[in-house]
């Protein structure tokens, strides 16, 4: 079997190119900030960034000038407030104008699902009476072929690259994830290339011992990156908590473009790789974010010989 392990620098250099569409998914948790920072460091330009919830990572990437367009369904700093860099780009064109394509959450889920299943559209009960179809012509209504009903439809979404953070994977990219499943599976199956970033690389036998927990098969994975704490300041279930202090700090500093750039200089451009970022954060931060334990008892799959 092929060993797909790469450094984050190698994976981004190989698979993320100017002008591509990139989906870094993970709902509130498993957000691969490490990959976003590497894309900034490698100075990618004109990307179409896709995420249900752009969160701080796309705020940072848009402030750094990597994006031309944003596809999304909820533009907020979760539990805190606004995403100020994205608002600056949309409202004032700073640092560059940003085209937006907007859906509801279920619309985005449906787009990934249609993309992953290679279907021409996904039907859903939403958008009727809303102004969203008026401002996004890709949201349409069709008549059911089985009755009189009219139903909203959204088009398939097939990103050039999906980047998914998880607890663990083996060298071939068989990936296990527990916690909020979000839309990561659909995004991975929909994408042309898939980069997996994990807290731990494990032996294939560990994966095979618990097959129900495998969300993404190595079959569709192109690169496996080992980057512990790569989802900081978001969280990884059972490994570390959200660094809410940073989410609050970002709410203040990101209101000013110059301060934002200074932060990027220190924490992105001034850092070589994920390992150096973790060293710079320091052990006190890690200890503060380490949760207590809540083990699930082992289950028995049975041995059938």
């Amino acid at each position, binding site marked *: 079997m092929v060993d797909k392990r790469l450094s984050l620098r190698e994976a981004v250099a190989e698979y993320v190119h100017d002008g591509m569409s990139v989906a870094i998914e993970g*709902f*509130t*948790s498993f957000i691969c900030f490490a990959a976003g920072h590497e894309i900034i460091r490698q100075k990618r330009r004109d990307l179409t960034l896709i995420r*249900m*919830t752009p969160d701080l990572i796309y705020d940072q990437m848009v402030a750094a000038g990597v994006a031309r367009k944003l596809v*999304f*369904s*909820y*533009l*907020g700093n*979760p*539990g805190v407030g*606004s995403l100020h860099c*994205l*608002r600056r780009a*949309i*409202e004032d064109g700073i640092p560059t104008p940003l085209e937006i394509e*907007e*859906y*509801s*959450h*279920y*619309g985005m*889920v449906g787009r990934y*699902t249609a993309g992953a299943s290679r279907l021409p559209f996904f039907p*859903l*009960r*939403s*958008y*009727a*009476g*809303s*102004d*969203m179809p008026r*401002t996004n012509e890709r949201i349409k209504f069709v008549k059911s072929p089985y009755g009189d*009903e*009219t139903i909203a439809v959204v088009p398939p979404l097939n990103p050039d690259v999906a980047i998914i953070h998880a607890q663990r994977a083996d060298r071939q990219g068989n990936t296990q994830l*527990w*916690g*909020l*499943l*979000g*839309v990561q*599976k*659909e995004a991975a199956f929909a994408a042309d290339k898939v980069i997996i970033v994990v807290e731990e690389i494990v032996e294939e036998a560990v994966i095979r011992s618990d097959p129900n927990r495998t969300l993404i098969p190595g079959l569709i994975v192109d690169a496996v990156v080992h980057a512990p704490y790569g989802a900081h300041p978001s*969280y990884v*279930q059972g490994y570390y*908590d*959200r660094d*809410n202090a940073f989410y609050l700090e970002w709410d203040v500093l990101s209101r000013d473009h110059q301060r934002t750039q200074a932060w990027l200089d220190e924490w992105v451009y001034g850092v070589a790789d994920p390992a150096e970022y973790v060293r710079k954060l320091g052990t006190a931060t890690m200890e503060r974010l380490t*949760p207590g334990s*809540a083990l699930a008892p082992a289950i028995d799959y049975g041995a059938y010989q």
Partner: protein
Amino acid sequence: MTQENTQRRAAYTPSEMMIVTAARAMAGVRTAFVGVGLPNIACNLARYTVAPDIELIYESGIYGAQPARLPLSIGDPTLVTGATSVVSMADLFGLYLQGGLVEVALLGGAQIDRFGNLNTSVIGSYEAPRTRLPGSGGACEIATNAQRLFYIMYLKRRAFVERLDFVTSPGYLGGNNERQELGMPGSGPQLVITDKALFDFATETHEMRLISLHPGVTLEQVDAEIGWQVKRAETIVETPPPTSEELRYIHVDLDPSGMYSKNRGG
């Protein structure tokens, strides 16, 4: 204002008044779709008081949450640990919400109109917004599919407007049967819970209607915060103030730091 009123008002905040009013409205509810902040505290208070069998559903993919701490967002890891089930968002929106299993959903927005339509998208024009708001998230399909909608919002003139800048999520649209004619599964907004008063929607016209004033609030104060001449029910009652038991749950169990419940008004 009488001295008694002054003392009563000092005993709890307007946010706490909203929380307990919302929690009481959840009596006997089995499944509730919850947002972060006030809706979260209200639903958890209902779980402790009037709705012990309530299953809390979060759009992040959680069914049956029993948070051990105040969740900081709808994706907080404390909602995962100890939940009945954690599912993909495809399953959450497809099987649970669109499958008709959500009895009540709590929503709020930047703007609401007399027919309970919500704006969470933009202030100003969509193409060149004065303020870009978060957008729908799951709100549009929640408003479409939840069996009943409760809104929780601070009563402010900038929020209760004659005309929305943008309709993100449908209430009763233009009123009367416009919503039903579009074939939406959910029956639409039932209550608007604010820091000053409680509103429902008239049976025929589906227009918002004042039904209850919180202690110490006058009709004039309510009218002053609404951008249209709001209809009134024939009998307007006074909302019962929070009980000491309800306040104890909020202060000790649900929001000990007062992050949401100490807010004295938007």
